[in-house]
């Protein structure tokens, strides 16, 4: 009985420590990674151009509102990711030097064109 209680106490204190640690660690991490949202509608990117700070890691949150899949691809960013229809995807980019980095939808390259402007 004693054993169970002490074990439970230990678990509780471990959980508390873990959650405290995650708050302390995650807080600044999330604050430091800007999130940029991009939508795919009718095989087009909205917005088609996004601005990103230089030398900073950025989290792209791409929501595909089309029923068809799309592949986010960029030679300049070295990124490629299939995004199912009606779903969202996370793609980390950077830190990058200033410049322009085009991206496109490989499944609809004629229409789905976008640009990341790093400043």
């Amino acid at each position, binding site marked *: 009985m004693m054993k169970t209680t002490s074990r439970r106490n230990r678990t509780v204190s471990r959980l508390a420590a873990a959650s405290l640690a995650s708050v302390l660690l995650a807080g600044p991490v999330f604050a430091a990674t800007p999130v940029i949202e991009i939508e795919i509608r009718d095989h087009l990117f909205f917005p088609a151009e996004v601005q990103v700070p230089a030398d900073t890691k950025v989290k792209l949150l791409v929501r595909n509102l089309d029923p068809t899949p799309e592949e986010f691809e960029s030679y300049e960013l070295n990124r490629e990711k299939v995004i199912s229809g009606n779903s969202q995807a996370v793609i980390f980019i950077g830190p990058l030097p200033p410049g322009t980095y085009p991206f496109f939808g490989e*499944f609809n390259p004629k229409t789905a064109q976008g640009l990341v402007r790093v400043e």
Partner: protein
Amino acid sequence: MLLTSVILILQETLEAALLFSILAVITLQVGGRPRNWLPWGLLAGGLLAWVYALNLRRISEWFDYVGQEVVNAALQLGIAFAIVLLAVWLGRRAAKKETAPAPGRRVFGFLCAATVALAITREGSEILVFLGGFLAAQNSVQALLTGSGIGFGIGVSVGFLLFYGLLALADNTRTPGRVLPLVLLALFGGNMFAQAAVQLMQADWLAAGPALWDSSAWLSEQSVTGRLLYALIGYESNPSATHVTAYLAGALAVPAAFYAGRRSRR
């Protein structure tokens, strides 16, 4: 849609065809039969690709929406690992200077089938998601299927050219031609290791660094030559230091494993 599907299917087919050709030529070099492992690799890969494509949405949500990167990296690391094991096997066989006994051949065949299966899982799932997604949309089915057929046809043709070209060179009694398949296998392994690193950087599991160089003005990845070199040896016009390191490590691991295997037998 026609041109898109030609390019898309061709790219994936080309990469797979190159791997099959290298493995098939090496198999013939060691006196084996590619037909002993190729059908199993294709079958297992096809099934896994189908399962992956069907569950892509769910898998993508794993690990805070980077599940796809993690699974792809795992598949690519698996290919690189299988290639290293193949190199050990080839090294051990080279030391013996005689034909391998049946159990050894089974190991070799299994490794070839596993490599092919893992490659098909990744490449094939992308094709299946593309085809599945747009066949359901039903507005350009004919263009889609025609394009895919053309892309697949060109990919398979180039694959046969590669196979017979490589076989002719490997049959040469001179050393450079004979070791060419192993050199290409090493580059393929390096590419897989580098691709896995890129996937993990995309998922933010591995720190991303600045590009080491930019050769896009000299040879663009979007040009035909650039695409071809990307499929064949993993050409990248602006790789990061991690990318290059992973490529070299993966590629050098193959000769290292070959010599380690050869020494262990002496």
